[in-house]
């Protein structure tokens, strides 16, 4: 499969547990060569969806494929997909090396791959310690090492930032970027947005098991806006509107401007001899977008 660029396709995925619908009619695509953030509040159905993608949970209806194949039909699953669901899935009596050797055997990888991954994940010093004594960060790294054993083309990570310190998180972002740049498909779920915001190219946002938004992050957030504070706000508004900007009041003496960038706003103010006290370019943060997309109007009251 090496060299393949594999998409993940979910179509109409639905999972019901008794009366509870955990995931409802979820359809989305995850493209190769990009990091896709799978976002939603806790309990939105992210984990259930990821488990359906990998055949651990059987959908009530709908289907999921990876590179056009259902997970269960992949000829070399661990060389195609690496997944981390629970950064704590080890026998406490196994050492890191035991754990990796066992799954290397299952994947048909040579044992030399185990040493490579222990080095890559910075676990070489702890390779022969039993996992019961591992810190949360070490557990996350060992889980990731397990997922990467088969050098998979697709990587699925469920809340990988849990328990990682800022340094570990930054390292992880670097790794995800590199894997995506190699043409792999990377899907990372999170409810903590600022941790993935810096690395995601695309997002899939769900709320209560339903799709809220999907697409490239830049398209969802839209162009930046400029926030300007001026004692001459009224005159400035007239001038900016005349220059084809779209202006709205954002409090006393404050304007939010769309369609013009900050240097242009400053130049126009100077042309009209108007004073500016503050000028800020606002990029919609994913956090705000996420809140907007996922806040339930009924709950927001």
């Amino acid at each position, binding site marked *: 499969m090496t060299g393949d660029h594999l998409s993940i396709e979910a179509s109409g995925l639905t999972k019901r547990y008794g009366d509870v619908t955990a995931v409802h009619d979820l359809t989305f695509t995850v493209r190769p060569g990009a990091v896709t953030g799978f976002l939603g509040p806790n309990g939105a159905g992210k984990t259930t969806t990821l*488990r359906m993608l990998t055949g651990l*949970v059987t959908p009530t209806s709908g289907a999921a494929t990876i590179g056009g194949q259902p997970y269960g039909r992949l000829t070399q*699953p661990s060389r195609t997909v690496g997944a981390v669901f629970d950064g704590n899935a080890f026998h406490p*009596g196994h050492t890191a090396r035991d754990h990796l050797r066992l799954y290397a055997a299952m994947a048909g990888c040579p044992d030399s791959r185990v040493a490579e991954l222990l080095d890559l994940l910075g676990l070489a010093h702890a390779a022969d310690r039993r996992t019961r004594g591992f810190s949360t960060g070490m557990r996350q790294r060992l889980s990731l090492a*397990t997922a990467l054993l088969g050098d998979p083309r697709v990587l699925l990570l469920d809340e990988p930032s849990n328990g990682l310190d800022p340094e570990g998180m930054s390292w992880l972002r670097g790794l995800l970027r590199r894997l995506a740049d190699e043409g792999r498909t990377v899907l990372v779920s999170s409810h903590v947005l600022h941790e993935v915001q810096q690395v995601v190219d695309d997002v899939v946002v769900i709320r209560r098991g339903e799709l809220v938004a999907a697409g490239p992050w830049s398209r969802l957030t839209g162009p930046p806006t400029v926030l300007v504070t001026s004692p001459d706000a009224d005159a400035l508004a007239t001038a900016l509107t005349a220059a084809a900007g779209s202006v709205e009041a954002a409090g006393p003496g404050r304007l939010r401007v769309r369609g013009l960038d900050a240097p242009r706003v400053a130049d126009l103010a100077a042309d009209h001899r108007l004073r500016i006290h503050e000028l800020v370019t606002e990029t919609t943060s994913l956090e705000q977008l996420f809140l907007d997309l996922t806040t339930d109007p009924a709950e927001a009251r």
Partner: protein
Amino acid sequence: MNLLRAELRRVLATRMWGGLLLTAVALGGGLVGLMALVGPENFDPPMPGLHTEEGLRSILGILGFTAFVPAAAGALAATSEYRHGTAAVTFLFAPRRGRVLAAKLATHAIVGLGYGIALAGSAGAALFAVAAVRGVSLGLPAPTVLALLARIGVAMAVYLLVGTGVGALLRNQIAAVCVVVGYLYLAEPVLMMIPGVNALYPLLPGGATAALTDFTYVADAMSAQLGSDAVALLPPAAGALLLTGYAIAAAAIAVVVPMRRDIT
């Protein structure tokens, strides 16, 4: 083949298998050796001595009552992946679950046989050694003793598989071990005492084991104490067949039940 290698590595990397072998030797060699050394005729109440067929069979048959050990080990092994959350990882690596479950079953059977061989082998070694030291001539010819020991060994492997079946059904490690040990250690002997119900005893795993190993001492003693008729055990061959049936049923459960179950 990869899956079997992986499952063997899974077992060998833990301390459990070493502990299990030690237990087998302690129970087999230790228990039988001790009983033989003391001599059943010196027990309280006294039992027939080693030089009698009955005494010899009893001593070996008592090993049948240690079956809760391999059964508990099987239950532990079958539930370990759920307890530690590695079932998800395993099924990600082997989404065709039947294959990995079959590999696990084969591994458990190997461990069970290993346990049985260690138990029966050490028991045999202890028995013959003590008999030689005490100058007692055993109540049965050596080939018969060895055959009995072999049956006990196989029965232990069956119990380990029964344990894995229970584990696969329950998935909760503590519950599975409690059920297995509780049944073998408490429930079955109690069932033996209840008039009417004890007619079922020959068909239970314990009864089948007793039949296989020709061990009627406990059943007879209990009947005598309760003043009821002796429970008639199945003939050894039928006991073997029944025990095999239990093993197959447990194996089927261990493979089929987790096949499509959601791993959450």
